[in-house]
């Protein structure tokens, strides 16, 4: 720590982004040769960093990748199409029995006591919500693993 000088953070900030720095920093630098030298050291470092030669692969990456790409187009679009067919099919498969037996279901549920009805609905809803959350977590984990 240098109590009478700018902090290391302030010096770096000034070296990186002079216009974005507080006027206090600029005015200190105007009268402090030591801090100016620190700023100059950082600027020299940044200049040297930007002039370090960029690495290149010593193999033909394009040819290597293209030789390993499978012939058909990426699977993502066909997966999406499958999903678009499967989701409505599932909804119909689940919803159809409810629609066909709606009369029976209405009579059955209306015959039940409200307390018994809630005792049935709440645990089922809780289980469904928990399973949904679990599925979502798994999905997020898989997506992260796939590097999206």
């Amino acid at each position, binding site marked *: 720590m240098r109590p009478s000088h700018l902090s*290391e*953070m302030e010096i*770096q900030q000034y070296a990186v982004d002079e216009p974005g720095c507080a006027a206090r920093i600029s005015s200190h630098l105007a009268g402090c040769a030591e801090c100016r*030298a620190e700023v*100059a*050291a*950082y600027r*020299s*470092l*940044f200049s*040297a*960093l*930007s*002039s*370090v*030669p*960029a*690495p*290149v*692969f*010593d*193999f033909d*990456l*394009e040819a*290597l*990748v*293209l030789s*390993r*790409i499978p012939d*058909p*187009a*990426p*699977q*993502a*679009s066909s*997966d*999406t199409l499958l999903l678009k067919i499967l989701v409505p099919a599932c909804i119909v498969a689940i919803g159809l029995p409810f629609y066909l037996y709606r009369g029976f279901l209405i009579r059955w549920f209306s015959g039940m006591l409200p307390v018994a009805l809630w005792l049935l609905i709440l645990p089922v809803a809780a289980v469904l919500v928990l399973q949904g959350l679990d599925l979502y977590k798994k999905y997020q984990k898989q997506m992260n693993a*796939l*590097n*999206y």
Partner: protein
Amino acid sequence: MSHYFDNNLTDKHLIDKVLHGDARAFGLIVKNTEGLVAQIVCKMAGNAEDRKDLAQDIYLKAYANLGQFRYQSKLSTWIARIAYNTCLSFLEKRQLILPGDLSYPAESGNDPGCPANGPATPRQHEAEALLSRKELSGILQSEIEGLSPVYRTLITLYHHEDLSYDEISQITALPMGTIKSYLFRARKRLKDTLLTKFKKEEL
């Protein structure tokens, strides 16, 4: 043919072509983004064979998941993110990384798998050794090698590739504050090390 490979084709055009089965368009994507990917792979993996495997793996993942790209960032940023995550997984599997650790055991200094642009002859190296600027660059490269892979990558992305904090955050999925903090530590270390080797006047 040359019209086809016009670099002005946008990311969207290229992606559409790839998704319609045009593998050559993916070749152009590889060409356009190879430099950035090389920076990440070469900063995070030391072994030439590993780099080759990683580079292939990165682009095969990008190809397989291209249909999921949602244009929420530049295509190069998205591929750079795949590169960073693939390298990070590789390092974690090999237990070569300690998150937040600044220091790293330096590997072979000459970076054999990723030569710098423009091969130099031994004679050229001798000549360059006389130039303080080149000397500084060489020392700097070896000092960067001494940083941990994540720090190396952050320094390179910010100071060499001129990416913004926001773009680096998209690539690394690190919070902006963490990136700034890591960069601060890495810059300070590099500056302190260089200052011990050179007088301030020489810098």
